[in-house]
């Protein structure tokens, strides 16, 4: 088991190197660089001045020298300076990483709280009115674009009803650590979380419903019934155990998906997280910030996949690798 985990972790190394190379090359291939981005609002900058700055930042070195420089610092947590914000990228990311992780984690928990019971109800009582309502809701969740739904939520609950704030992560006037601070934070989270979660239920509900319908017909369920196991226990002890297993395994992937999905949500709700920063940085061609962000989300995907593999190998006795 330990051997499997170590091997699985070692596989990550070439994956991450490849990822960083691709990101670096792509970023270099983009039209314009940090200097054009920084001077985009300054029409007086002459090409000579810009060239001088490029030279001083090492932007004229061969790409592999630049890559070596960048990756060497990156592994120490130094992604360089943001040319737009005039401060270290790491410093810029710090508070936002926490915000995004909080948003993603809460969204994921809420998604599961909604989707697992609904998936179970729809799968167990197929073709009842409850199932039909859930399936209809799920089609809407699948078909509705996230940004449209999020805007609608914002419009309805913030502008019309005024129940929730329309942006930010917390009121800066409230002292950190107090009860009020916690409530305010929750209030700010509510709309972004619900917008994401209500649509993200799609995959889990659909998967769980189908898997339960499948598992219901399996022979071992017949065996359980022939033992005299009451119907409720047939579900909890036999069907659900088998059907929930892959969901546990998808957990790692789910969280990376949410980090990716945060781009829309954070922009719409002006939530100060990584996604919002990403959009801004692309607009201003803040090269160092963009590469750092892509590197972080790419790493999250690689780590998430690894976590999924490891979780699956722990929960499923059939996948015991030595």
């Amino acid at each position: 088991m330990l051997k499997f985990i170590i091997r699985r972790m070692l596989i990550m190394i070439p994956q991450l190197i490849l990822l960083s190379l691709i990101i670096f090359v792509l970023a270099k291939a983009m039209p314009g660089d940090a200097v054009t981005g920084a001077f985009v609002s300054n029409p007086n900058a002459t090409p000579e001045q810009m060239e001088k700055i490029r030279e001083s930042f090492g932007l004229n070195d061969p790409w592999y020298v630049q890559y070596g420089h960048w990756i060497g610092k990156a592994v120490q947590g130094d992604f360089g300076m943001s040319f737009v914000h005039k401060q270290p990228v790491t410093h810029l990311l710090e508070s936002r990483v926490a915000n995004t992780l909080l948003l993603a984690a809460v969204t994921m928990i809420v998604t599961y709280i909604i989707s697992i019971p609904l998936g179970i109800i729809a799968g167990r009582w197929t073709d009842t009115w409850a199932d039909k309502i859930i399936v209809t809701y799920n089609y809407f969740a699948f078909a509705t674009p996230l940004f449209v739904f999020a805007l609608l939520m914002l419009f309805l609950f913030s502008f019309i009803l005024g129940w929730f704030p329309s942006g930010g992560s917390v009121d800066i006037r409230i002292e950190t650590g107090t009860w009020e601070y916690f409530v305010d934070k929750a209030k700010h989270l509510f709309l972004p979380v619900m917008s994401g979660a209500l649509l993200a239920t799609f995959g889990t509900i659909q998967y769980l419903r189908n898997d339960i319908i499948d598992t219901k017909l399996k022979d071992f369920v017949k065996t359980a019934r022939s033992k005299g196991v009451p119907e409720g226990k047939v579900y909890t002890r036999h069907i659900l155990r088998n059907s929930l297993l892959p969901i546990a395994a998808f957990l790692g992937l789910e969280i990376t998906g949410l980090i990716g999905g945060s781009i829309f949500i954070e922009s719409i709700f002006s939530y100060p997280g990584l996604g919002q920063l990403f959009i801004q940085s692309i607009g201003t061609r803040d090269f160092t910030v963009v590469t750092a962000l892509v590197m972080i989300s790419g790493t999250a995907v690689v780590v998430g996949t690894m976590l999924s593999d490891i979780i699956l190998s722990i929960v499923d006795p059939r996948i015991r690798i030595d």
Partner: protein
Amino acid sequence: MANPVLEIKNLRTSFNIKGNYYAAVDDVSLTVHENEVVAIVGESGCGKSALALSIMGLHNLKTTKLEGQVNFKSQNLLSLSASKLNKIRGKDLGMIFQDPMTALNPLATIGRQIEEPMDYHMKLSSAAKKKRTLELLRRVGIKNEQRIYSQYPHELSGGMRQRVVIAIALACDPVLLIADEPTTALDVTIQAQIMDLMKELQNQIKSGIILITHDLGVVAEMADRVAVMYAGEVVEIAEVRELFMNPLHPYTRSLLNSIPSNMEDKKALHVIEGIVPSIQKLDRTGCRFAPRVAWVPEHEHEESPTLHEVEPGHFVRCTCYKNFHFPEEKVGDESYVTTKS
């Protein structure tokens, strides 16, 4: 004869197909006695498995209609509520399934799966349950029972798993066992082991067994009495020796003649003309086997065929058996024997 443990009376099991109900088991009556193995034999689609599932109450009642009676311990199983039926299933009624690869829960240990019926039907401490489970494992011929107890199904071979499935069925000392093709999915040598094991267990536990199978060899090895089913009906019932020595119904005789090991080598096997009709297209008037023995004149069949007792305990449906002969055999040709001696 010993006391009857199960009496099936006029059982009709119908499936809903596009709004209409079609009977897969059509007016079947059968009695199983204590310490008796009754085999139900027939080809796929004859209704034998539907019959087994009807007794166990394992059909989906939304799409299945059950009529008639299945009397067990002076109550009709068909009219019991789910919770009352659950008090009987797994305790007095045990079931052995066909495919040991799928009949066990892949995520639970062998021990847990054998103990599960005891959870519901016996008041035992967990230590007592474990003791009983280990003993059951030994009884079904598993030697390293301590290890198997905590293993998962995928760690076991097919033959071992089928032994576990049998141990589950025996967990609470059932009065009646229903075995649905218990050896079909197994290799020949494993099949032989399981057959011998079941014969041994039969001697010990004295319960009634309903053995569902398509394999007449398994019938000859294990059954005391045999019911041959065709198109939802029982066409012949007889004590096992009688059935193999003196098969009467044209379907029984055709089946016996189409088994390779039963015929002289290289000699053409008997082929039953036509195909088994689907339950929607089945003509339910007259002799259901008539279309497959087209050379038999119409007047030989009964208009509405019933089971006739031709010898004590030997029943045959329809009258077409009386002058029946295969087209390839001359009438009165004694050299054409159904079983090779």
